């Protein structure tokens, strides 16, 4: 039988199914959950960046009103580190010894009856330190570096020979600062033990990973740990790890024998849940006079915590961005006394693309060709490293449609040739080839006695629209109206799905849901085929379709029955099926697995006297394969573009170079785009369903951000003639 002749209703811009909960304040975010008898916790963090704790006096704090416990490295038992994940080693377990590795490291946790009491008592913990001189930057000779940490360095051809043969070369260094994810929701953990059973409401993008981590750290079976994250106030990567504060909250709940709730403060969000690490990149490009790339060399160095991993191969994307015979990419990470970095929306690619696409603009200027033309001439028609055709690639269409919508052809070639009063007006563009990523996923789909269906998975919806697209998908495949399908997500007790990250969840989990639907329909069909009372008795599976809330004879919708009727006659309250998806293998398919592609065209206005940069419009065109819901996908891209505007002109986590203290750890000081900073955005989707994905889907959660910083920097150059190679682009660089 066929589960769906095609997928016509998919892609419909339906409203978010969780929208009503969110606009009425009813959606339960982790910090909204309270349990009877819960105590509250507050962190004490180190005020030095390196050294040792010589004395930690908790006497006053313990005597303070309402205090139940003070956890320190003297009280916390030795805990093992969590497991290896696809993002590297787990963060170090907290409060294990007297060593300080970064400013803002947790040194104690105070647990009290109320939030106010815990916070007040945290101020009474006295800590004495023997400080050491911290390593805080790349150029510190004491810094330990890790070359090619992810095994992604690449070599193709002979880059020196390529550069030597070039008519025109570009050699430039680009720097990007620390940026902080800063999801609006303060991360929080509420942990409750019942005997050896542990329930945790946690701000995580990856409930299954947190469950595995907590089971391992606390020595209990995975089945006795339940992690819930049905709603999350954003994450952008900050929720991809089981952070030390999560483990501390669980330890505290064990110590006091009551549920313990810990909500981070905004300043603690800067030191405790990761950030996009700063980096320095050198790009050398070579091209012949006809604008053919003959060499790409891209080296990066970025900061890493002393004892942690972070997936940031800045340069890796440059190996596959263009057709080019001679390529070297190499990444290095340098360990420093800084809080642990983490993936932040488009990790590595956000930074790497800024360098490459800025350098491409410099090359276009040097060659005197249009920047768009340079990209088209060097377009990677096949995967440049594998030589295989792409599973989908509409990058050329992204360029063509974007240029048309933006009016690129009217752009004057020379920089500094347009003004509007005291505003210098410039236009720039950048291309994006986002990498493919997918992990195995499971899902369960169940039809119930009321005739509806439920999708169940541990995967969660970080705001991307997972609830909505899975509901749409299941409704479509089972022939049900949307209102009769419910999705239960973000619960580690449900079938395991990967993280909401890497732009890979929709394809992985969606494919698992499709598989579950197919199996479920197969099981239902078996029931009716052998049932003389069913109108579909004896039907050939090929002649049965899922429609009208049940199974129907193809071309004869009057002949069939609803799921409710099938279940009732067989005396079953429900019938479920498990589905699975595994990532495609490029060699088996003979195709290179494509991620999303995109093109951004930006216009900026720069105040000639003040150097003020205003982004006045952005046109973005994305090839995301099949779009399951145009409304939520568009929101993803808008969010990405605005995140890119933040990266380009605002965001900069400033660390004091002597103490290692973050100097702007508030929303008043760390600037993010606000309403007034956001111009009209024009977002369009192009492309075909991806051939390597069961659903044809390519994720769009990150691609929208990548390339925006370069497009804006290139526009600033076009407006002013000044090439800014260091983000964020602030007025001092333009005066």
């Amino acid at each position, binding site marked *: 039988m066929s589960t769906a002749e095609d997928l016509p209703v998919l892609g419909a811009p339906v409203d978010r199914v969780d929208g009503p909960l969110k606009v*009425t304040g009813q959606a339960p975010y982790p910090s909204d959950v309270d349990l009877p008898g819960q105590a509250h916790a507050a962190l004490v963090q180190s005020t030095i960046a390196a050294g040792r704790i010589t004395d930690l006096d908790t006497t006053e704090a313990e005597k303070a009103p309402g205090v139940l416990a003070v956890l320190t490295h003297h009280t916390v038992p030795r805990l093992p580190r969590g497991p290896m994940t696809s993002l590297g080693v787990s963060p170090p377990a907290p409060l294990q010894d007297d060593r300080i590795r970064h400013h*803002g490291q947790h040194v104690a946790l105070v647990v009290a009856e109320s939030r*106010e009491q815990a916070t007040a008592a945290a101020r*009474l913990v*006295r800590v004495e330190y023997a400080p050491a001189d911290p390593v805080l930057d790349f150029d510190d000779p004491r810094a330990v570096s890790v070359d090619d940490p992810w095994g992604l360095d690449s070599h193709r051809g002979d880059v020196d020979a390529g550069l030597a043969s070039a008519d025109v070369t570009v050699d430039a260094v680009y720097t990007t600062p620390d940026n902080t994810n800063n999801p*609006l929701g303060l991360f929080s953990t509420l942990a409750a033990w019942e005997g050896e059973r542990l329930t945790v409401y946690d701000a995580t993008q990856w409930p299954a990973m947190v469950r595995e981590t907590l089971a391992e750290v606390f020595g209990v079976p995975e089945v006795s740990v339940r992690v819930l994250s049905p709603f999350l106030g954003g994450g952008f990567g900050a929720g991809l790890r089981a952070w030390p504060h999560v483990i501390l909250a669980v330890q505290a709940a064990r110590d006091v024998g009551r549920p313990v709730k810990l909500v981070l403060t*905004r300043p603690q969000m800067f030191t405790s849940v990761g950030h996009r690490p700063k980096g320095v990149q050198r790009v050398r490009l070579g091209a012949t006079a006809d604008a053919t790339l003959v060499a790409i060399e891209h080296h990066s160095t970025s900061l890493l915590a002393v004892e942690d991993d972070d997936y940031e191969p800045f340069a890796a994307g440059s190996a596959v961005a263009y057709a080019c015979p001679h390529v070297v990419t190499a990444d290095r990470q340098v360990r420093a006394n800084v809080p642990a970095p983490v993936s932040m929306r488009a990790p590595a690619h956000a930074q790497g693309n800024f360098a490459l696409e800025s350098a491409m603009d410099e090359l276009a200027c040097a060659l005197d060709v249009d920047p768009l033309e340079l990209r088209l001439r060097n377009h990677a028609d096949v995967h440049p490293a594998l030589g295989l055709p792409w599973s989908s690639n509409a990058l050329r269409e992204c360029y063509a449609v974007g240029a048309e919508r933006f009016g690129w052809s009217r752009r004057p070639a020379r920089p500094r040739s347009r003004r509007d009063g005291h505003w210098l007006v410039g236009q720039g563009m950048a291309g994006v080839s986002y990498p493919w990523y997918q992990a195995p996923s499971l899902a369960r789909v169940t039809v119930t006695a009321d005739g509806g269906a439920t999708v169940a998975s541990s995967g969660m919806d970080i*705001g991307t629209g997972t609830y909505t697209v899975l509901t749409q998908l299941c409704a479509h495949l089972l022939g049900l109206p949307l209102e009769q399908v419910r999705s239960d997500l973000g619960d580690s007790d449900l079938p395991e799905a990967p993280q909401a990250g890497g732009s890979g969840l929709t394809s992985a989990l969606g494919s698992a849901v499709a598989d579950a639907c197919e199996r479920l329909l197969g099981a239902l069909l078996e029931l009716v085929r052998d049932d003389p009372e069913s109108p579909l008795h004896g039907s050939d599976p090929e002649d049965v379709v899922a429609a009208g809330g049940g199974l129907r004879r193809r071309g004869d919708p009057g002949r069939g029955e609803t799921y409710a009727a099938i279940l009732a006659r067989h005396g079953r309250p429900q019938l479920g099926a498990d589905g699975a998806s595994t990532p495609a293998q490029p060699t088996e398919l003979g195709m290179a697995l494509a991620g999303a592609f995109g093109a951004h065209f930006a216009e900026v206005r720069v105040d000639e006297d003040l150097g003020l940069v205003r982004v006045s419009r952005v046109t973005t065109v994305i090839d995301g394969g099949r779009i399951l819901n145009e*409304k939520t996908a568009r929101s993803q891209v808008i969010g990405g573009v605005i995140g890119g505007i933040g990266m380009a002109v605002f965001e900069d986590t400033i660390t004091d170079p002597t103490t290692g203290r973050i100097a702007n750890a508030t929303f008043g000081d760390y600037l993010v785009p606000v309403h007034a900073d956001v111009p009209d955005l024009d977002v369009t989707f192009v492309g075909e369903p991806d051939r390597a994905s069961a659903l044809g889907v390519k994720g769009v959660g990150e691609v929208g951000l990548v390339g925006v910083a370069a497009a804006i920097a290139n526009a600033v150059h076009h407006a002013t003639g000044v090439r800014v190679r260091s983000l964020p682009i602030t007025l001092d660089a333009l005066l």
Partner: protein
Amino acid sequence: MTSTPDVPPAPPQSDPGAAEITTAFTVNGTPRTVGADTRVTLLDALRDRLGLTGTKKGCDQGACGACTVHVDGRRVLACLMLAAQCDGREVTTIEGLSREGRPHPMQDAFVRHDGFQCGYCTPGQIMSAVALLREGRAGTDEDIREFMSGNLCRCAAYPNVVAAIKDVAREGGDHAHL
């Protein structure tokens, strides 16, 4: 070297913060009384004492707008107001916007225009947006952007928020509902 944690100086043990104070106010049309320590903000009183968790905390420092509620009809940041300051006042939160079980037109418009992603800033955006109409500041896109700029959205649903507000403003803002 001796160092204290990176927080303001400790309150003395006789800290009046430990004192309880009773506040009587109206929340979403219902008279409520909260007995709490004088340090408790309106935000924490709503969330922790009254179970109204629709109002969110994004910074607790008056910098993000997630905690926006109406006090005597005007938008305020609930994290910057002490509960004790609300004695005798009327507070409206996101939970109090609907009338007779019907969502406020602004709530509907946010859903229609997808004016959010994670939804965490949304109660604050909506409370601000409703007040914006009442303040007569939703006349132009520029005004909406300017006077909504105290409400951060890290998911950056900004253009859709503006579209939602415009939509409601065009329909006359359903004054009966405000």
